[in-house]
C-alpha cells in the first residue's frame, strides 16, 4: 500500500515525510497549550491552502475569494448545529454541497460568459463580498452581530458534536491536512490531474488534444470549493463565533493564499511549508514584540507583505522547489510530477 501512496516520491522524501507525520502525531504530548494553538493555525492554513492550490496551482484558475467557501461551510454547519442540533459530521455534507453549488455557479457564469484570468479573480472577490453583505443582514444567523456556538467544555471531548479541547481540533486538522495531501497527490496522477496541468500550461493545446475545458474547469472549481468549506466547518467549531465582517472579508481570502504562494504554487508540499514558515514567523514576531513591550497594530500584515516581497524577488517558484533540490528529495528528473 505505502508503495502505491509514495508513487513518484523519492525514498528519501518518503522517509522524511513519515518522520514528519510521526512527529506531528506525538507533538501534543510534549507541547504547551500555546504551541498547540499555533500548530492548529498552521494546519488550518496548510489545509485550505492545499484546497486553493488545487484550483490555482494545478489548473491555473486564480481565485481571490476563497473566504466565500470557508464562510459558507462555517455558517452552514454552525447553523445546522445551533438551530437543529445536527452533528457537524452531518452538517459538513451540507457545507460541502452549498460551497460546491456556489463554486459551480461562479464557475458556470465565468465559463459561460468567457470571464477568464484576472477578471475571473475579480468575479470571485465579488461573490465573497456579496456573501459578506448578505450574511451581515441575515438575522437567522445573527447578522452583523455575529453567530455563536455554545462554548465548548474543554474537560471532555465530544467528537460527535466537535465540542472539546484544542488537542482534539489539532488531531482533526492533522488528519484533514494529511488526507488533503494524499488526495491531491492521487488527483495529480489521475486523468483529471493531467488535464488540469494541461489547461494551466496551454488551454488551446489542451483543447486540441480532446480536453473539454468547461468540464474540467468546473470539476476543479467545485472540488476546491467543497474542500475549502471543510476548513470552514472546523473554523466555526473551533472559534465558536462567526462574524461576516471577519469570515468573508477579502483579507481572509488573501491570508489563505499566502501559504501556497510562499511555499510554492502547484506543489503538494508548498502549502504545508508555506503555512509553517508564515505562521511560526508571524507568531514569533508577535512574541518578540510583546517581550520588547512594543505595541504596533498591523505588524503581522506588514510582515506578511515583506515575506511576499522576499519570495517574489528571490524565490519566484516559492520556497519548496529550491528546498527540494537542496535536500535531494526529488527523483532524478529535471521537472515534473515528482517535484510537485
Amino acid at each position: 500500500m505505502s508503495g502505491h501512496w509514495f508513487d513518484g516520491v523519492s525514498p528519501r522524501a518518503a522517509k522524511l515525510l513519515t518522520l514528519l507525520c510521526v512527529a506531528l502525531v506525538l507533538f501534543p504530548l510534549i507541547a504547551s497549550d500555546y504551541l498547540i494553538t499555533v500548530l492548529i493555525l498552521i494546519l488550518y492554513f496548510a489545509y485550505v491552502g492545499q484546497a486553493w492550490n488545487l484550483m490555482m496551482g494545478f489548473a491555473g484558475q486564480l481565485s481571490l475569494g476563497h473566504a466565500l467557501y470557508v464562510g459558507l461551510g462555517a455558517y452552514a454547519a454552525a447553523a445546522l448545529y445551533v438551530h437543529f442540533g445536527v452533528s457537524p459530521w452531518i452538517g459538513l455534507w451540507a457545507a460541502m454541497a452549498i460551497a460546491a453549488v456556489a463554486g459551480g455557479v461562479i464557475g458556470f457564469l465565468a465559463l459561460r460568459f468567457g470571464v477568464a484570468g484576472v477578471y475571473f479573480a475579480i468575479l470571485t472577490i465579488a461573490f465573497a463580498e456579496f456573501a459578506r453583505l448578505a450574511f451581515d443582514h441575515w438575522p437567522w444567523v445573527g447578522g452583523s452581530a455575529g453567530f455563536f456556538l455554545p462554548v465548548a467544555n474543554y474537560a471532555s471531548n465530544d467528537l460527535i458534536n466537535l465540542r472539546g479541547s484544542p488537542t482534539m481540533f489539532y488531531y482533526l486538522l492533522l488528519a484533514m491536512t494529511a488526507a488533503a495531501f494524499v488526495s491531491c497527490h492521487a488527483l495529480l496522477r489521475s486523468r483529471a490531474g493531467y488535464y488540469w496541468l494541461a489547461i494551466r500550461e496551454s488551454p488551446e493545446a489542451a483543447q486540441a488534444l480532446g480536453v473539454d475545458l468547461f468540464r474540467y474547469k468546473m470539476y476543479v472549481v467545485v472540488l476546491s470549493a467543497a474542500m475549502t468549506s471543510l476548513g470552514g466547518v472546523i473554523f466555526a467549531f473551533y472559534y465558536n463565533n462567526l462574524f461576516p465582517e471577519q469570515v468573508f472579508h477579502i483579507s481572509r481570502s488573501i491570508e489563505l493564499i499566502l501559504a501556497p504562494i510562499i511555499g510554492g504554487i502547484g506543489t503538494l508540499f508548498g502549502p504545508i511549508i508555506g503555512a509553517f514558515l508564515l505562521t511560526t514567523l508571524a507568531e514569533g514576531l508577535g512574541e518578540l514584540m510583546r517581550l520588547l513591550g512594543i505595541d504596533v497594530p498591523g505588524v503581522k500584515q506588514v510582515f506578511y507583505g515583506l515575506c511576499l516581497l522576499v519570495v517574489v524577488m528571490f524565490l519566484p517558484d516559492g520556497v519548496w522547489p529550491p528546498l527540494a533540490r537542496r535536500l535531494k528529495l526529488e527523483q532524478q528528473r529535471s521537472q515534473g510530477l515528482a517535484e510537485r
Partner: protein
Amino acid sequence: MAALLNIKGLSKSFSGLKAVQEVSFEVPAGEIVGLIGPNGAGKTTCFNLIAGVYRPDAGEIHLAGSRIDGWRPDQICRAGIGRTFQLVKPFAGLTVMENVIVGALNQVGSVRAAQGISEHLIEQLGLAGKRHAAAGSLTLPDRKRLEVARALATAPRMLLLDEVMAGLRPTETDRMVALFRDLNASLGLTILMIEHVMRAVMALSRRIIVLHHGQVIAAGAPDEVTRNPAVLECYLGEEAL
C-alpha cells in the same frame, strides 16, 4: 475511395479581410494531401476552421459523413482529427512524457495505459532521451516532434500537420517523412499537411491543393500542380521549373 474529409464552400473573414473564400476540397481516406501556398494564403485559417478553433462564416465541413463545423476543438479531436500548431504550444512546465500522456488520455481512460502509448510514441519520434526533460527546455525541432507525438497520441483517423518540417535539418526531414509514410501505410492514417519544405511535400503527397488569397487556385497530382503556371507565378517561382 470515399472522402474522409469533405469541405464545401468554406469562407471566413476577419474584420473585412477575407482569409478563406469559398474553399472546397476533399481528402480521401488513407491519403496524404499537401496544402501549399504563399504566406497569408489562408492555410492556417483553413486548419483552424477544420479543427474548430474558428466557426466558419459559410460552408460545411464533413468528417466521414458527419457535419463537424461549429463543433468545439475537443469534440473534433474526439471525432478523430489530431492537429499540430504552427506556433508550437508545448505544456512548457510538464515533461515530454507528461505532454504526450495528455494526448494519449484521449484514447484510453487510465494513466497507466496512456503511459505505455506515450512511451512508444516518444521512441518513434526520437525523443526517448528527453522523456523527463521539461518541454519548455526543448529546442524548436524537438518541440515540433513533440507536437506530432502529442497529436498522434490522441489516436486520430486524420492528422492535420501545420509546418512540422520547418526548422528541421534535411536528414531530420527525411526521418519525419519516413515516419509519416510508415504511419500512413501501416495504420492507414490520413494526413493533411501544410508545408513549405517542398522536399517533404513532394515526397509524401499524392495530391496537392494550392491556396492563394484565400482561394483554391490549383489542385491535383504533385507534378501536375508544380507545372501549373498560376502556381509557379504566385508561389514556387519560375526557377522551380
